[in-house]
């Protein structure tokens, strides 16, 4: 099983800075905007972006939440495994706010579809945007596209995009793993 480096630690850092700037351009002081990381792996992206926005661009306060989509997935009872949930933590109101959903890899679009349903349990946002670090082209099952994308990659179905974070996996790196 071969694996190829898609992005190095340095490249990831540059991309995160660009994404942070793009968010800043559209949302300025984040007074009416909330960032929601999709569990489990979108949380790393949202935490990095928040840190950059606060430490390097002087944003004072950003509402950050984590959303678990397990109970909204469309493949319940369709696989062998029981789907296990993780924590949802949204301790602010999203009614009339601009919500930015954040995930690491956009593949079929089904997780985002579930997240769009899930987030509405917390109120009616003014608008919802999507940010993903990696966008796997030509593999969508649903008409969903990101507003902010880190890097577009072409990967065939058997391949997997593996995102590693220093906090969890010891280093920052993104690999394309073959069959």
């Amino acid at each position, binding site marked *: 099983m071969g694996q190829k480096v898609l992005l190095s630690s340095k490249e990831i850092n540059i991309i995160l800075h660009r994404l942070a700037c793009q968010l800043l351009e559209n949302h300025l002081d984040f007074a009416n905007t909330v960032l929601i990381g999709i569990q489990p792996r979108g949380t790393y992206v949202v935490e990095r972006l928040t840190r950059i926005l606060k430490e390097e661009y002087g944003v004072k306060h950003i509402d950050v939440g984590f959303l*678990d989509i397990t*109970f*909204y997935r469309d493949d*319940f*009872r369709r696989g062998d495994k*029981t789907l296990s*949930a993780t924590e949802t933590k949204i301790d602010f109101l999203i009614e009339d706010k601009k919500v930015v959903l954040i995930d690491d890899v956009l593949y079929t679009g089904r997780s985002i579809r579930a997240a769009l349903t899930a987030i*509405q*349990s*917390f109120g009616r946002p003014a608008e919802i945007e999507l940010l993903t670090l990696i966008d796997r082209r030509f593999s969508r099952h649903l008409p969903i596209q990101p507003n902010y994308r880190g890097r577009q990659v072409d990967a065939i179905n058997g391949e997997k995009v593996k995102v590693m974070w220093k906090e969890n996996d010891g280093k920052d790196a993104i690999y394309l793993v073959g069959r």
Partner: protein
Amino acid sequence: MGELGVKHLLGIKYLKESDVQLIFETADHFKEVINRSIKKVPSLRDITIANIFFENSTRTKLSFELAEKRLSADVINFSAGQSSVRKGETLIDTVNNILSMKVDMVVMRHPNPGAGIFLSKHVSASIINAGDGAHEHPTQALLDSYSIREKLGDVAGKNVVIVGDILHSRVALSNIFALKLQGANVKVCGPRTLLPKYVESLGVEIETNLRKALNWCDVANMLRIQNERFDIGYFPTTREYTQQYGVNKKLLDSLDKEIVIMHPGPINRGVEVTSDVADSKQSIILNQVENGVAIRMAVIYLLASKIK
């Protein structure tokens, strides 16, 4: 997290400790869900559940129904009082008729011990036992332990006394199994006539003095006196029972430490506990009811994910 080791929830007896922990972790997530502004998730939208109650119930039936609806399952309700059971239909026939309408799961309460186990051997649906005679009431025991865990952080190592009618109580038996499984210390307390003969073989101790029992425990689970199940007189009068085994505020305040009061409901106010005890800060009776919905959502969700 993994999956449950069982296909049905017939009793705590059939669960492993890891099953109980899995149910609790899943219930944590559902507890968060039922506190949202929209309290419903779509997970079980293609599952149909029949609630079959051959015995009266308010809390358990409502709690199950709410849990099912919050998971988006389709629900049908059946009470024996208004059904063909009165005309002499057998249990298997009744349930098979319901199942032929494409029902995936059955929640059943029945006056006979072992009714759920019997049914699970004869029908294909997943069975959840919502109380079978004086045998088990597993979801009640799970929500009781979950409430202790929520209040005191952990169940292991805690001292729990179950007070009252142990003999006729399925809540007591399921609680003993659940608490022992999680490593709690358990005593039962009540008049000798209401303690089963070999209860100590379950690894619990007997204490007939209520004050001693309360001074020992962290949690007191006060059971209801089930007059409807009494075939003979087990104690002279209700008044005498209350004097010896009822908890009032004066007794509660005179203890060495602050204990937690639980009650599975329905409460006979003034018999097992007085109103000021039931409504005191130490009582977690209403938390138990809230947790009941989360626990039942977790059990239904985990069992439903095994239906292929």
